[in-house]
């Protein structure tokens, strides 16, 4: 565009002419011109004038032009006149969409954040994001511009563009929602804002935290993300057995974030492991709660460090409070926390020393949580007597890795006179708890576009295609034709979500692809008694020699060679889509979604290998209505249609596993293959509306044994977080793989397949 300007009559002259005629701008223009010319020389101002002219031409209005002069002067030391000209052009483009007022705001914001934008590419990115916003939601520009300082972080300009895009997507055409989002009043917007310049966050670190917790404290507690709130920093919250960690710790990035999450998770783990008492709240005051919390934190950490001394290294860097922080109660509490954590720490305030003394004296009964309450109360009394004001509403537990301490209290018997004060302190947490009740509400932008109809449940009762017997364990008889299988047409779902999930699972997919490659080449099998080969088959050679000496005709096939093994394998994946798969995981994905992802990955691998396979989903509603949905038959290819069927599966009804297995067995029995394998993917216990779970377990066990006698291996992959399911009872211990963490299912299922298919 600067080329076009250069061909026109010198822009500066034209601009000067135009400005001369505008009273309210003439003086400021002349002044700007003079100062810019003094810095860069008049000849260099041509591109800048081009940008200004562009603004004039779109009728940006006096305010915007004045803002442009301001910006030009402010940034003249940083940006060349050419770059300023580009800014003018970009502002003009914005003005065309959003009007002068928005342009004014944008230019002012640009002045503010320009130092954070490295190079022309990032400046372009900033203006491009604003332009995209202006085109879709012109009202949003001024709002975003007002928040630019918070939204544009050095090195994270792309995140700004992402923020705008996410806002437009989330709000759709809803003006009110757009406004709320871009004014940073929407929780989703706050969540995204917290993510800018921070991270990795909970989503990235969850697996890691789970593993570290499992390693140190055994079975890991369920972890959940805690959506970011207002301005106050978030702390970990322990709600019963669940540990809720902030989605991000704002402003903490990279290895520091990883360390902070670990410190926080292991601190919470220590609470849960060393007895998480629920002190009845009774008449306790917030200050007592805070101090008892600090002592209890120190108590569990002392116990934890006795067992794992290295934890001191993990936690110590966060204890940096010192008397230099000022004489506030908050600082005093942080120093007390430090003093209890580090007995060597000395503080000028007697309270810290007293706390250390009391805590050291109680060393003998450190296993008893009651000591926290006792010491906390005494220290709180001291604070009360010194008339120090404790700010219950603004109280934030320090250091950052510690939990909010509310998990220690049982609020059910709160004394009326204490209620108001305590209310102040727990208000925030209570709000969270309400919105966090059924999973994170708006934690992540929903991958599915809003407004699309839910996939049709595969519930339409289809024709009966088969009947199977069922074993009645109580009566000890097999009832013939007891269950009826109905074929339901799979509803075609949207493959977008599934594809999205597949893309996100990149590393696992890459590993599976490597396994596929290795398996496709095949393992070398040693062939004996060959007519040619690379070494002698000793046994055959000896026999040949013996035969020759005995005067018989020797068999001359005395060599060994290797050949690539032939794969001759048929697999049927039986997918449980009963109601229980509707459960949601911490990240909002349903169990069935994870099952689908796992099956899709496996199907990709199988298709790449060329193994014969079928995918069948089942659910039941009584013995007369066992619904079977053939996602992919043995003869059909795994194509978009099959993937759409898979995506279209929806949860509902019960799990009559035995009937499903019998049907699967009948299907795979028809296939010609050397090895036949049924992989059952189920998340729960067999159950149905008209039979007891125990009977159905027995029945399923019987089917598994029958199938084995037909040479069909059945393998159960059970989603069984507690490890107490009846998977082993049905499939046998060696043939069942309980998957403790549902998120791991995709990786585990495919790995399992390759292990099983090796021979």
């Amino acid at each position: 565009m600067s080329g076009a300007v250069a061909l026109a009559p010198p822009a500066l002259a034209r601009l000067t002419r135009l400005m001369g005629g505008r009273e309210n701008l003439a003086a400021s223009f002349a002044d700007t011109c003079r100062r810019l010319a003094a810095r860069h020389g008049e000849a260099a101002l041509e591109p800048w004038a081009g940008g200004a002219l562009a603004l004039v031409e779109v009728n940006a209005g006096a305010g915007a032009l004045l803002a442009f002069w301001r910006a030009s002067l402010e940034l003249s030391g940083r940006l060349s006149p050419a770059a300023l000209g580009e800014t003018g052009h970009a502002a003009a483009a914005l003005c065309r969409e959003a009007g002068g007022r928005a342009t004014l705001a944008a230019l002012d914001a640009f002045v503010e954040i320009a130092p954070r934008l490295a190079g022309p590419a990032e400046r372009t990115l900033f203006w491009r994001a604003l332009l995209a916003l202006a085109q879709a939601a012109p009202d949003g520009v001024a709002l975003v511009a007002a928040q630019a300082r918070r939204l544009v972080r050095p090195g994270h300009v792309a995140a700004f563009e992402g923020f705008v895009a996410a806002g437009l997507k989330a709000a759709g055409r809803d003006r009110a929602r757009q406004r709320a989002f871009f004014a940073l009043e929407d929780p989703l917007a706050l969540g995204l804002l917290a993510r800018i310049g921070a991270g990795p966050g909970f989503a990235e670190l969850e697996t890691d935290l789970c593993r570290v917790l499992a390693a140190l404290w055994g079975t890991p507690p369920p972890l959940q993300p805690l959506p970011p709130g207002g301005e106050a920093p978030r702390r970990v919250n322990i709600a019963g057995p669940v540990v809720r960690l902030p989605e991000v710790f704002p402003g903490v990035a990279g290895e520091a974030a990883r360390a902070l999450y670990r410190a926080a998770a292991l601190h919470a783990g220590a609470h849960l492991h060393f007895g998480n008492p629920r002190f009845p709240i009774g008449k306790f005051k917030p200050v007592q709660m805070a101090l008892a919390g600090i002592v209890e934190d120190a108590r569990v950490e002392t116990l934890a460090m006795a067992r794992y001394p290295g934890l001191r290294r993990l936690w110590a860097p966060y204890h940096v409070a010192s008397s230099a922080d000022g004489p506030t109660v908050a600082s005093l509490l942080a120093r007390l926390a430090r003093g209890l954590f580090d007995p060597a720490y000395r503080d000028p305030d007697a309270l810290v020393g007293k706390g250390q003394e009391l805590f050291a004296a109680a060393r003998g009964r450190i296993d008893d949580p009651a000591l926290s309450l006792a010491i906390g109360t005494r220290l709180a009394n001291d604070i009360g007597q010194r008339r120090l004001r404790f700010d219950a509403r603004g109280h934030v537990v320090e250091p950052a890795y510690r939990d909010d301490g509310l998990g220690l209290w049982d609020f059910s018997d709160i004394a009326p006179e204490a209620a108001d004060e305590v209310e102040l302190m727990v208000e925030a947490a209570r709000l969270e708890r309400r919105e966090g009740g059924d999973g994170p509400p708006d934690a992540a932008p929903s991958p599915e576009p809003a407004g699309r109809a839910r996939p049709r449940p595969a519930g339409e009762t289809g024709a009966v295609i088969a009947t199977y017997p069922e074993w009645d364990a109580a009566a000890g008889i097999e009832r013939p034709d007891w269950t009826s299988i109905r074929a339901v047409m799979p509803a075609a779902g949207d493959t977008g979500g599934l594809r999205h999930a597949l893309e996100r699972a990149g590393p696992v997919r890459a590993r599976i692809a490597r396994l596929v490659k290795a398996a496709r080449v095949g393992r070398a099998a040693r062939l004996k008694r060959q007519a040619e080969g690379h070494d002698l088959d000793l046994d055959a050679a000896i026999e040949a020699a013996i035969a020759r000496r005995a005067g018989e005709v020797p068999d001359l096939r005395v060599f060994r060679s290797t050949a690539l093994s032939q794969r001759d394998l048929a697999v049927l994946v039986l997918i449980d889509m009963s109601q229980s798969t509707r459960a949601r995981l911490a990240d909002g994905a349903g169990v069935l979604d994870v099952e689908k992802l796992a099956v899709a990955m496996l199907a990709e691998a199988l298709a790449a290998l060329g193994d014969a396979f079928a995918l069948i989903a089942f659910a039941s509603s009584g013995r007369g209505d066992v619904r079977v949905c053939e996602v992919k038959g043995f003869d059909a290819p795994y194509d978009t249609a099959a993937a759409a069927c898979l995506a279209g599966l929806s949860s509902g009804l019960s799990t009559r596993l035995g009937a499903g297995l019998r049907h699967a067995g009948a299907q795979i029995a028809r296939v010609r293959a050397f090895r036949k394998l049924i992989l059952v993917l189920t998340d729960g216990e067999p159950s149905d509306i008209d039979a007891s779970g125990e009977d159905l377990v027995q029945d399923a066990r019987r089917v598994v044994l029958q199938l084995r006698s037909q040479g069909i291996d059945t393998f159960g992959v059970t989603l069984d977080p507690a490890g107490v399911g009846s998977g082993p009872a049905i499939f046998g211990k060696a043939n069942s793989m309980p998957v403790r963490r549902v998120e791991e299912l995709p990786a585990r299922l495919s790995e399992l397949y390759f292990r099983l298919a090796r021979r």
Partner: protein
Amino acid sequence: MPTAFPAGSSPAGSSSAGALDLSAYRLAAEPYYRPVGDEIAVFEAAWRHRLPVMLKGPTGCGKTRFVEHMAWRLGRPLITVAAHEDMTAADLAGRFLLTPEGTVWHDGPLTQAVRHGAICYLDEIVEARQDTTVVIHPLTDARRMLPLEKRNELVAAHADFHLVISYNPGYQSAVKDLKESTKQRFIAIDFDYPAPALEAEIVMREAGADAALARTLVAIAACSRNLRGHGLDEGASTRMLIHAGRLAAGGVSLEAAVQAGIVLPITDDADMRRALSAAISACFA
């Protein structure tokens, strides 16, 4: 039930039966073994009746060491065969070899043990193909004999012959499982990693580590075993601890020793290594 076999029959009996000298298979010094439960008593009882024994348990928990110890304790030679998937029945039983004089039969390790009264230990038996394992069947019931069809010979087992196999169950053995008909012939002794105090004692003794180092290593092992099912198939074995302990006792820093002896061998997954390293670093000050 009659006790068919005199306990601890004299070594002279075996030398008279064949030309072969099994002294190479005798254990001169006592292999260190720290009993965990009643496994020695069970094994001795099984030995008295020559009942075949199956040792089950995860890798590196002391199965092989236990057999060596028992062989020493009972004063019998021990012939160990590590099973592999190309192993044939002839590799166990024996085959004809050619010499200038003609064909000469050469006993396989199993036949040697059967003829001369040694303890035959088939390590990781599931690795062998199932058709191979069937040759041990006639040895494991009341017949106690080994048919050598190529030689047209029926070798009756020496009174001191004793068969021991080891077997590492786990879901990865879904394909490589023992046949039901094989399994049911054995007395089983279940092995697991010893309790922490005991394991620390073993690590001290075997690795020459001091008590604090041994305790730390055992705590590390407990962490890694907690990760079973969370991304690891098996936790660190006692053997791994001993290896890491030897490195550390030999002057390598604890961190490097644990990294080289435990973390790197146990997993190739970078995320898993990171989590494991984090847990491990919590175990020592």
